[in-house]
């Protein structure tokens, strides 16, 4: 089947958009809580670690010569072992997707329509996601580019705080007055998750895509945006108050006001729906990639429909914002494990396969 391959630019933005989720609102709080003074620095080493992980994935890409990771797995591992694994991982992915969306909805409801059933909003987001899914990966990547331009300018708003920024609020101390830094490390790492989905993009890319470079650049945009945002948060809000805030970014955005109307930050919050939808869509898409290996004869749109439906049903269960955060954390840890174990496993398999061929 002839289909269009991803372009490098679109892939870069796609990776950035998958990484950008609801986490942007609270990351500065996590940095202050776990790392204390100048906690914004913590995003840099963690970002470097992510870069190494991307490098690991790029080895798989090179050794596998662009073959799908599922093909590589199936060549060496019997299907009956893989089937439960495929189902499990697609469940994890669809859960991550739907919980991120539900978290977005619940935060949104703190500002608007607090008593409407959150599942009404969730339903609409899922419909949107499903419609986007049925258009295929290439179109998702194009849509995400449109969404990218409608959100990236929000970073420029950080210039608005130059007057309030005080160097002495940053303090010369690094990581003092924090908490458990190991826990903090995992928490911040979660904010970067999403890049690992580039493993599934192998068959959709060709030489011209320079897939791994695109993933790296996308991740670097995300890093730069986190660094700027956290740096500004620490200089404007200060680490002591940051520890107390749940969504520091929203308070920062509250700075912007027009003489005739207050609270335009609530409108800005709407823009983040775009980034959330892409995260959701891509995790659902990943889940679909996995389930179609189990049921190859069923049409792909039916897969997507079932995934969206199951995820929608499951998202009825957690009702409290904190519960969702706990769920996402657990799923995030699983996903982190996947991000490291999978490439290692694949490299081993590929080396074995290569040896077999040679013999």
């Amino acid at each position, binding site marked *: 089947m002839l289909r269009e391959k991803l372009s490098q630019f679109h892939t870069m933005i796609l990776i950035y958009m998958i990484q950008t989720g609801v986490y942007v609102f609270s990351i500065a709080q996590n940095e202050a809580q776990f790392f204390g*003074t100048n906690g914004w620095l913590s995003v840099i080493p963690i970002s470097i670690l992510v870069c190494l992980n991307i490098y690991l994935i790029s080895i798989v890409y090179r050794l596998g010569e662009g073959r799908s990771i599922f093909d590589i797995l199936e060549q060496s591992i019997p299907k009956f072992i893989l089937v439960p694994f495929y189902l499990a991982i697609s469940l994890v992915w669809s859960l991550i997707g739907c919980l991120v969306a539900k978290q977005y909805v619940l935060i949104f409801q*703190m*500002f*608007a*329509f*607090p*008593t*409407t*059933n959150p599942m*009404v*909003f969730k*339903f*609409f987001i899922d*419909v949107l996601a499903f*419609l986007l899914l049925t258009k295929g990966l290439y179109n998702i990547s194009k849509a995400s580019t449109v969404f990218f331009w409608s959100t990236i300018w929000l970073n420029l708003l950080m210039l608005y705080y130059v007057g309030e920024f005080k160097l*002495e*609020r940053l*303090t*010369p*101390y690094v990581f*003092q*007055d924090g908490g458990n830094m190991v826990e903090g490390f995992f928490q911040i790492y979660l904010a970067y998750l999403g890049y690992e989905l580039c493993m599934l993009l192998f068959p959709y890319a060709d030489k011209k895509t320079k897939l791994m470079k695109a993933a790296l650049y996308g991740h670097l945009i995300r890093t730069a945006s986190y660094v700027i945002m956290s740096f500004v948060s620490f200089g404007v*809000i*200060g680490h*002591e*108050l940051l*520890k*107390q805030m749940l969504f520091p970014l*929203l*308070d920062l955005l*509250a*700075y912007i*006001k027009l003489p005739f109307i*207050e*609270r335009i930050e609530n409108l800005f919050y709407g823009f983040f729906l775009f980034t959330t939808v892409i995260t959701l869509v891509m995790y659902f898409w990943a889940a679909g990639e996995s389930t179609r290996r189990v049921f190859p004869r069923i049409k792909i749109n039916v897969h997507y429909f079932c995934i969206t439906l199951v995820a929608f049903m499951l998202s009825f269960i957690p009702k409290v914002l904190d519960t969702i955060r706990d769920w996402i954390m657990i799923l995030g840890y699983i996903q982190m494990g996947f991000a490291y174990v999978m490439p290692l496993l694949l490299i081993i398999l590929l080396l074995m396969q290569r040896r077999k061929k040679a013999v």
Partner: protein
Amino acid sequence: MKLKKKLCVMLLLLIMLPLNACGDQRVLEDLGLIQTVSYDLLPSGQLDISVSIPQADPETTSQREVLSASANSSKEAKMMMSRKTGMLLVSGQIRNVLFGESLARSGLKGHLDALIRDPSISSQIKISVVDGNAGELLRDNYAQHPRTGRYIDMLLEKESQGQTIPKVTLFNFQRDYFDEGVDPIAPLIRRQDSSYVTTNGIALFRDDKHVARIEPKDSLVFAFLKGKFREGEISIDLTAPGESKEIVMFSSITSSRKIKVSQGTDGAKKIKIEVNITGSVLEYLGDLRLSDERERKLLEHRVSQYIHKRADAIIGLMKENKLDNLGIGRYVRNRVGFKQWQKMKWREEIPKLQVESSIHVKIKDYGKFR
């Protein structure tokens, strides 16, 4: 076929849309958009809360609606007030919060918490302390200034631009409250009979309690010590006892401040506050000729001397009350090492500080007359 499918989806969405809006409807005409809230502490320990709501209804003659209630918490009071009005009270457009002196002196902590926690309330609302009773000030109608809420808002906004009062938002206040190296401040306002409202200096807080104040004539000096600003005016009376009158009006002031921390004697910290002030003289009553450089330098020196004296008085007041509203603690913290800072009881150190202020005044121009 494809078109049909699309139409189906559209139709479905159209049906769902009105369903969605049923629960949380907000019709603008039915909303009571609270603009100003006042809090007072009653002797019984209850809160006396008033709100002022601008009226949009063309059929009423009044410009605003004022509601009051006494209750144990602000949210409870809101429910009680809601029973007295046909409008749905919402807090999304609050611009000003006024705390009565009685409440400010007993501590604002819990009340601020209620404001911060509510996501519908902006963190950019202005906080001020009323000299006397805040409810009375808000409930009163000032004949020359219809709509008291808007009047107070404009007054605070404009005066803070000229530095006679600080601009304090809920966000600034809570930031200073949580930061251990600085204590919060808030502007003071006062009701003058039934004719007008005036700003009345600055309230100094120790944590969340209002303990001391800066008089209006010193508020600009406080602003010099507090930080950098552009735009301000100060009138200085240099008249020495028994001599002829000498008054200078300093305008278009820009000022910057530096704080240096070093080790002083007896283990106490030595703080040097350096202030550079530039401005134009637009009114001068006295014997010096401003066009003469030597005499102008003399005037600069005398103005510096005056500000220096007032600054020392302000610093003295803060040391006496163990206050750090200037944020000196932040500089000490950044200097001494974090472990040392945590061990140090900063509040207890304040009276021991050796603070030295050095004020440099520069007359940029002196108008268009020699």
